[in-house]
């Protein structure tokens, strides 16, 4: 009866926990791990032009649309008194700024925040075969010659495209006819498209931005997109290399100029960008906020950042407790106190594992010898505990000072150990030492350290921390597992060793 009750409770908790989790993951699109979606880029386009006399100005600027590998989640326009209209849809989306009386140097900004989502690869329409370009002589025969050459050196569409790119970079007469005396990327890209279209291969020029952290005054680069019959291939027209690098943001799906200004001189576009990693959670929050505001209002992600970082640690405690249950009741490690290993593991987070263990052993060993000395003074229990606590604090200060003098900075982090916990450990260890012998005391001490190390190693996984903060409902599943372990009546692994004498088949 009781077992059935427990099983139902466990089932209900697991279903609620996983249900919420799956809903947030699948429907709200919360990313499963921080590293995949943590890449957030803020790209700012500065649109500038000038006008010496006051007069009407209209600037039309192409906006990015469905760039592969990214998702747009925020856009801002900084227009300074200009009227703003968004025109077109999808690939032809443009921002149109207009002002009746503009004068002098003008600068407008468009800021877009994107996050990396490699799974986001929007389908591009499959094109028909392009018409062969109609050209006058001598361009027509020059192009024929180039196409023939590329065709001879290629085996399929991909190698044909690569060949076309290589040829377009050449300096011989036939190429110069198209690209001019001083080759410029736009003309080169245009020639590549001409060669490809002559072979009736669907191809187009696109413009993309190479993302690099803190890059300023960046410009759009031309890329070639070729359809090989089943999928689109991207080519770098400068090197002929295939594939779009991960940090390339497709801004425009055509080779046309991104900025067109009427009524002003010297239009310029320059891009600056910034990379942020902490924004992964904000991204998830933003997306859910947009689609399901109710649910997100009750999310930890809505708390102030400081509280959030506190919770990202607090949420690890139940996981640590679960590990303690596992280590004690299933493995059978004996530790000081029930949740001491969790607290020690928390301290390890600051000191790093190896340093943490060394410092812990150092402080406890020193404290223990002081405790044995105090034992000879015949002190009452509470004053003795207080004395040990005082000595522990002094020892910690000493360790910090000495290691600092020696230039070992990690020694400073000793201050992060919970000193009351250490004083209690020393007290318990010394009683155990006297009553059950050093072997038992050291065994439990090692058990505590091993448990703390295991818990620490799980706690520091960034994926774990992220996962619990974004999906705190999974703690219900942890709770269900803890409840289930509460009815675990099997042997502890250490008991298999303890009762080995009885394993001889029984009577």
């Amino acid at each position, binding site marked *: 009866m009781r077992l059935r009750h427990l099983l139902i409770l466990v089932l209900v908790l697991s279903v609620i926990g996983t249900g919420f989790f799956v809903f947030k993951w699948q429907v709200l699109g919360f990313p499963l791990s921080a590293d995949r979606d943590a890449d957030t880029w803020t790209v700012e386009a500065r649109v500038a032009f000038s006008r010496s006399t006051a007069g009407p100005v209209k600037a039309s600027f192409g906006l990015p649309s469905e760039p592969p590998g990214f998702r747009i989640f925020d856009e801002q326009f900084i227009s300074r008194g200009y009227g703003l209209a968004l025109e077109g849809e999808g690939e032809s989306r443009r921002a149109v700024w207009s002002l009746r009386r503009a004068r002098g140097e003008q600068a407008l900004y468009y800021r877009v925040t994107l996050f990396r989502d490699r799974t986001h690869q929007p389908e591009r329409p499959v094109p028909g075969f392009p018409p062969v370009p109609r050209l006058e002589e001598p361009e027509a025969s020059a192009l024929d010659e180039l196409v023939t050459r590329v065709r001879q050196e290629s085996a399929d569409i991909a190698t044909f495209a690569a060949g076309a790119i290589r040829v377009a970079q050449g300096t011989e007469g036939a190429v110069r006819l198209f690209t001019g005396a001083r080759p410029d990327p736009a003309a080169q890209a245009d020639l590549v498209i001409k060669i490809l279209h002559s072979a009736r291969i669907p191809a187009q020029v696109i413009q993309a931005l190479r993302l690099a952290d803190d890059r300023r005054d960046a410009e759009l680069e031309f890329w070639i997109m070729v359809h090989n019959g089943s999928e689109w291939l991207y080519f770098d027209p400068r090197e002929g290399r295939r594939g779009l690098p991960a940090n390339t943001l497709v801004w425009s799906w055509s080779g046309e100029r991104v900025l067109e200004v009427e009524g002003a001189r010297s239009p310029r576009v320059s891009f600056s960008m910034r990379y942020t990693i902490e924004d992964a959670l904000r991204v998830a929050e933003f997306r859910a906020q947009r689609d399901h505001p109710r649910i997100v209002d009750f999310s930890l992600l809505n708390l102030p950042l400081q509280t959030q970082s506190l919770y990202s640690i607090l949420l690890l405690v139940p996981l640590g407790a679960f590990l303690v249950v596992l280590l004690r009741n299933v493995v*059978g490690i004996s530790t000081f106190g029930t949740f001491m290993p969790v607290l020690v593991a928390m301290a390890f987070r600051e000191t790093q594992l190896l340093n943490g263990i060394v410092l812990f052993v150092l402080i406890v060993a020193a404290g223990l010898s002081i405790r044995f000395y105090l034992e000879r003074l015949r002190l009452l229990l509470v004053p003795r505990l207080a004395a040990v606590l005082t000595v522990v604090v002094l020892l910690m200060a000493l360790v910090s000072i000495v290691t600092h003098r020696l230039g070992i900075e990690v020694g400073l982090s000793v201050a992060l150990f919970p000193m009351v916990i250490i004083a209690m450990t020393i007290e318990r260890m010394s009683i155990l030492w006297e009553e059950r012998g050093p072997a038992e005391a050291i065994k439990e001490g090692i058990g505590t350290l091993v448990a703390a190390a295991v818990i620490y190693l799980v706690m520091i996984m960034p994926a774990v921390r992220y996962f619990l903060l974004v999906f705190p409902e999974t703690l219900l599943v942890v709770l269900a597992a803890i409840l289930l372990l509460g009815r675990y*009546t099997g*042997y502890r692994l250490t008991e298999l060793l*303890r009762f080995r004498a009885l*394993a001889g088949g029984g*009577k």
Partner: protein
Amino acid sequence: MIRRRWRALQAAGVMGINRRNADYIMPLNPRRNFPIVDNKLLTKERAILHGVPVPELYGQLSTPHEIRDLAGMIAGKPGFVVKPAHGSQGDGILVIMEQRKGRYRTAGGRLLDEADMEHHITNALSGQFSLGGLPDQVMVEYRVRFDPVFDEVSFQGVPDLRIIVYRGFPIMSMVRLPTRQSDGKANLHQGAMGAGIDIATGLTLPAVAPGNIVLDEHPDTGARISGRTIPHWKEALHMAARCYELAGLGYLGVDIVLDAERGPLLLELNARPGLNVQIANGDGLRRRTEAFDPLGERAHTPLERVALARDMARRGFRADHAA
């Protein structure tokens, strides 16, 4: 390998800690009856009420300034035992063999002065040895002059009997023999040896040394351990069976000492008895408890239960023979 060992232990009916806690202690031992076993003063009180013999209580101390009353309690008593009322696993028990002019000689041969004694009692009163570190009381009681039957197989101290009582049936037992390592105490955690006892006959089996090694020779005296008859065995079983009613606990460890003159005396009860008794007997506890389960409430009085348990032991605790 783990699977095989697991299966073998399961086949032998070996009880693990998780099993003991979840399937025996939790359902059979109501929490409200724990104080009876956790507080040794209360145990003694109840035992006297139920006519179970116990070592005589010389007095009890509750506050540090009562320590001066100690002299009055032990006047004219050559030896005595100082014991925290809530001590667990034998912690804090001080066995004094003899006292002379404010000097005390312990069972382990250590010599203590007044200040040492006072310190020990103060520590015990402030809860150093009690569960949870709560303030405690200290009892001063009769030191058992143990039966000479164990002289050859124990190193000083008091050897005692541990009898596991399941729903009133004594199902498994061992004698715990102090060693030099255990400082004269009969606690397995402190290095004492445990030797199983045949419930039917009261004959000892080979002992278990610390580290769970089966050993038929006492490490300090070199004498053989198995094949010794426990005196007053029937009486000891009867006492253990009565502790079921006394404590109201269905799964109980009963610790009994054998006094040379007074016979078996109840030392203490344990609501969470250890599992090493299985190694001492080379048998699993679960195998034995399961043999009693089909019996239901057939035996009512302690005497009937002892008779049934001995009968069962003679048949090797096989359930099919019980009905």
